[in-house]
């Protein structure tokens, strides 16, 4: 797995850990976490496609 995907995965984990603390803004933390999960997946697929012979 590439480092960028791991970084995005870490950012997603941080956002999702903040959800219980976010009171009225839980949707912001959730949405940001989901965006980072998608970015992590996209980055992983991007790296994988570049490595293919």
């Amino acid at each position, binding site marked *: 797995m590439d480092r960028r995907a791991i970084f995005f995965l870490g*950012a997603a984990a941080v956002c999702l850990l903040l959800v219980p603390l976010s*009171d*009225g803004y839980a949707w912001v933390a959730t949405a*940001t976490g989901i965006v*980072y999960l998608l*970015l992590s997946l996209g980055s992983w697929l991007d790296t994988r496609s570049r490595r293919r012979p």
Partner: protein
Amino acid sequence: MELSVLFVIAVALAFDYVNGFHDAANSIATVVSTRVLSPRIAVVWAAFFNFAAFVVFGEAVASTIANDVVVQDVLSIGVIFAGLVGAILWDLITFYLGLPTSSSHALVGGIAGAAVAKAGFDVLITSGLRKIGVFIVLSPLIGLAIGLLITIGISWAFHRYRNVERLNRGFRRGQLLSAAAFSLGHGANDAQKTMGVILALLIASGHAAADASVPLWVVLSAHTAIGLGTLTGGWRIVKTMGSKITRLQPVGGMAAESGAAITLFATSAAGIPVSTTHTITGAIVGVGAARRLSAVRWGVAGRVVWAWILTIPGSFAISWLTFHAVDLVS
């Protein structure tokens, strides 16, 4: 109005002026480094939009600072003065140490520290502090994601475009708008923090009702102070920054400023005080990460994390000590 109240208002406006002075480089660094504007014109451009923010945004952030950090009964002239001194001293110490801390978080920590020194931990409003704490972490991450997504979107939209010269000209024009938007967001979020402190002071000293909105003279003076700070400080800072700024392409500068501006607009509208410095840092990291992770200067990102951890406890401690020192003397 008593002399002591006028004095603390002057200290609050001085804090706002220093904020503009200090943060001006954030607003104009990218337009200067891409040579879209000369440093002198860039500073005037940013200062104008700092001031103009009062027309566009309400006073939700000011209300959060005045009502959601500590209970209103504990706020007095002494508490607000000690809070401001704590925030200013913390800013000066970290400026000397080269830590990219946030004046906004220093202000929140300062007010909280002085209030606790006066009446104990029960005066803290945990829901308000939690909201601010959550967005200390979320705002740079949101700026990063938006900066990155804008960069990816632009790459997809224009990757077949062959006339690079013409494209760059377009992005340079776009950067004028994105820099203006970021300065507008900076003026809105940061000037409102000072407005909140002055409103709290007016309520504490009996010059305004507990549910009063921010008087127009406070709005205008706070925006004038931050605009003047940008106007005077920006030029000097940019002159010394010239060689240190990472050379960004106009497209990257536009994406970073737009990402940060969108984050600041949304948080200002929601009444959440966030750090403009950390938000633009996050957005610039996002632009770098769109290329590859090694394009990012991770040292800067690491120092921002340290700033998150240290700022509120640091300014809290200084204000706590300042309040006790003032109390002892008086």
